[in-house]
């Protein structure tokens, strides 16, 4: 069946091998686990996405109600990417990362240091300070950052394993508000660039890859979709489509039309 082949081709492109922090990921789509209404919906989306890496957060435990999230993720065979969500200072983020390393036995950390509650935009000076400290402690640091090419360069310079610029604010679904900046970050980066926030639907993920990103991290667009598994499949396909389109080389934009049919041999009627 033609459509089925097409879908598999896109999934294969999304999973064309992706080195990140010394490991090989099976997919360029990283799934955030926030916002799923149930663990069943989360498990279904993980399977549909084909992802090999998913985020988790750390909070005070309620001894009465524990356990099954990590079990579900283990059963899905995915690697964990702990985040420092909710941290507002470098100190809190560093301590949270240390707790995550102890809890999950991983050196990976998605570093978030938030500077503003309304927009959840990163606090650049605190982010850079935390990144430097965590790299020195041996973490593989994946910083959630502004779409700022200079800050991205500074994060790479202190030893981050990737940079993860936002397309638009977390959970906003506004897509990539400044594609020009994302392109600049991708052109300059010597580490993988992962578009980390703002994806609203599949076309946003395709654009991220077309702009030169190496991967996409997506939570709300999938977890809060009416059908999370279907959206996970759509976004995985879009990531694959973007990879293929980027490799294929798009035509330049031009201000006027350019006929695709030659005028040579046109009959005089």
């Amino acid at each position, binding site marked *: 069946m033609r459509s089925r082949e097409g879908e598999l081709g896109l999934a294969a492109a999304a999973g064309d091998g992706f080195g990140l922090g010394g490991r090989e990921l099976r997919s360029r789509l990283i799934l*955030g*686990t*926030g*916002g*799923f209404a149930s663990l069943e919906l*989360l498990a279904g989306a993980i399977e549909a996405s084909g992802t090999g890496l998913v*985020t*988790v*957060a*750390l*909070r*005070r*435990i309620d*001894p009465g109600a*524990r356990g099954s*999230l*990590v079990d579900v993720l283990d059963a899905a065979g995915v690697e*964990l*990417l*702990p*985040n420092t*969500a909710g941290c507002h200072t470098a100190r809190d983020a560093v*301590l949270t990362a*240390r*707790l*995550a390393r*102890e*809890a*999950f036995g991983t050196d990976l950390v*998605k570093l*978030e240091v938030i500077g503003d509650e309304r927009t959840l935009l990163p606090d650049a000076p605190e982010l850079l300070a935390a990144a430097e400290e965590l790299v020195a402690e041996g973490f593989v640091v994946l910083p959630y950052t502004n779409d700022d090419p200079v800050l991205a360069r500074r994060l790479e310079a202190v030893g981050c394993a990737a940079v993860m610029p936002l397309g638009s604010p977390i959970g906003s679904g506004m897509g990539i508000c400044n594609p020009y900046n994302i392109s600049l970050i991708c052109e300059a980066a010597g580490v993988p660039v992962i578009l980390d926030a703002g994806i609203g639907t599949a076309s946003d993920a395709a654009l991220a890859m077309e702009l030169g990103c190496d991967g996409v991290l997506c*939570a709300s667009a999938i977890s809060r979709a009416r059908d999370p598994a279907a959206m996970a499949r759509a976004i995985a396909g879009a990531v694959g489509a973007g990879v293929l389109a980027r490799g294929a080389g798009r035509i330049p934009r031009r201000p006027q039309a350019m006929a695709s049919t030659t005028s040579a041999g046109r009959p005089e009627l």
Partner: protein
Amino acid sequence: MILVNGQTRSGAETLGALLGELGLGPEARGVAVAVDGEVVPRSEWKVRPLADGARVEVVGAIQGG
């Protein structure tokens, strides 16, 4: 008295004893503990003494990110 996840609690002599009261053994997965702002490695839970007034944070995985 000690402070566990923001709640006052009568003191246990060691961190291991406190975690045992919470149903968390040394094999508990996806859990980490900080005392007075410093992470206590799992291997030290059993023997780590808890002073009066110690601030203990016990964290685990939730969906997020």
